[in-house]
């Protein structure tokens, strides 16, 4: 079984992102970048499938600027076998990314695509579903458990009311939720080995897809700030405030 794992370079989740002073976009100058946390879970799941003998090859792929090579190397260090960078301008829209990934699917013919349910920059939660639509393949989003059984996958999904299990025919697209697994850290020997693994580069303009942007960012602002309230000294005071001041109970 061959697995394709699309990943994304995003701002590290510990960074508090702020708007640029002219409010034209977010300020990404000199901030730490990392592999999107949900993508790390996708890589981990693919590596576990390989370790258990289910998968034979894992290909990491990303759509982004040449700086994204750094995140592909991380994926290689975590256990992916080779990587593909589809070079594009900064921040392509999910629909463009899905179209580019569909082209890679056609070239590689994987049995399974595992990717993060959302990237923590745009919080869009779209790419996996869009890729499924373009390829006319089944989708199993927000996965917390993945079991491969022959030519099908049983996927338990985190939904608002609890958990749902569906069965999808392979090839299928699976998007990862937080509790699918706990990703490992790359070891130093594996980081060294990753430097020698194959990393191919393509240009998005050579794929024959429409890369035009459909949306534009008009402005980016801070949300209304909530002011800290007061500290109360006791449960009695808390109840009094909630009843008589806030009238919340």
């Amino acid at each position, binding site marked *: 079984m061959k697995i394709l794992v699309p990943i994304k370079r995003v701002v590290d989740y510990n960074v*508090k992102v702020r708007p640029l002073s002219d409010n034209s976009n977010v300020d990404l100058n000199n901030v730490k970048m990392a592999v999107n946390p949900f993508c790390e879970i996708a890589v981990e799941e693919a590596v576990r499938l390989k370790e258990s003998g289910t998968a034979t090859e894992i290909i990491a792929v990303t759509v982004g600027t040449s700086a994204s090579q750094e995140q592909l190397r991380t994926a290689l260090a975590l256990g992916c076998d080779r990587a593909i960078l589809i070079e594009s301008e900064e921040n392509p829209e999910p629909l463009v990314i899905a179209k580019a990934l569909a082209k890679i699917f056609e070239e590689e013919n994987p049995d399974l695509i595992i990717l993060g349910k959302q990237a923590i920059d745009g*919080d869009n939660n779209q790419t996996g*579903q869009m890729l499924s639509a373009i390829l006319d393949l089944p989708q199993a989003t927000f996965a917390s458990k993945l079991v491969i059984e022959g030519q099908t996958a049983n996927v338990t999904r985190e939904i608002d009311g609890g958990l749902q299990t569906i069965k*999808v025919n392979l090839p299928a697209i699976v998007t990862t939720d*937080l509790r699918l697994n706990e990703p490992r850290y790359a070891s130093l020997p594996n980081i060294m080995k990753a430097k020698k693994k194959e990393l191919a580069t393509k240009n998005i303009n050579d794929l024959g897809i429409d890369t035009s942007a459909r*949306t534009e*960012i*008009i402005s980016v602002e801070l949300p209304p700030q909530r002011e800290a309230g007061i500290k109360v000294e006791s449960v009695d005071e*808390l109840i009094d405030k909630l009843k008589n001041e806030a009238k919340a109970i």
Partner: protein
Amino acid sequence: MSILVIAEHDNTGIRPSTLNTIAAAKLLGDDIHLFVATNNSELPNSASTIESVSKVISSVDDTLEHQLPEALAPMIKEVATSYSHVLAPATTFGKNLMPRASALLDSQQISDISGVIDQDTFKRPIYAGSCIATVKSNDSIKLITVRATAFDPVQLSGGSAAVESFDSVVSNDKSEFVNEEIAKSDRPELTAADVIISGGRGMQSGDNFHLLESIADKLGAAVGASRAAVDAGFVPNDYQVGQTGKIVAPNLYIAVGISGAIQHLAGMKDSKVIVAINKDEDAPIFQVADYGLVADLFNALPELADKI
């Protein structure tokens, strides 16, 4: 042009998130149609009384019980061509379905809007709500998911929509429903509750959540949890409030033993009144709380349950 709203429902009733989504649709146009795909022939009729809906487009078929996106998205694609906007709630239902329909229509979806500026321009949180982006869409059919808490719901009654049937049901041989574990509770659901009391890692165990439940019962509140509490296995995933869990904005939110990580704040900071109970006086949760009580929750909760 008219606005299409995709109804979220459980085949017996329309979910509250649909009513918030219709409220957002009202900011875009007056002629709002509701698409109801279900296995229950009664549901479209009961949806026809929803305020502000002028037409219910009904698709009733046994295969639509679980509304899997492989079947539903092509149906939406066909219906959507006569609309300027197609809206669904940004719940796991809408998040799963809408991008698939959007790609079939070659449209770049706008996710999780929290405000409507005009027909083409919307506000939406990015980076876990650290920033709010104003985004303009140039697609001719705009597919949008709606952050329910940002729009006050319309009423379930007061409308009298025509019901029209849409019979092109799409068969799906790609995926099938296996089973569901849906939590049953007498308490209100998190996204619709007026009062929520949530526990974090400070609760120390799932058993200790009964301390929250006894207060919840007195206040008619829902019980939630932080990601840390869910990851630690104290409570199931459907309790989770936060960036990747549920987004809530009740009148009163009581955070107990929750430090206030940004991803939790992203899910509850639009609540009207926030109370924090935590023994660490430097916990970031106090920076957003209207009322903070620095105390050991194992002393404070029984006292609160007793006196409230």
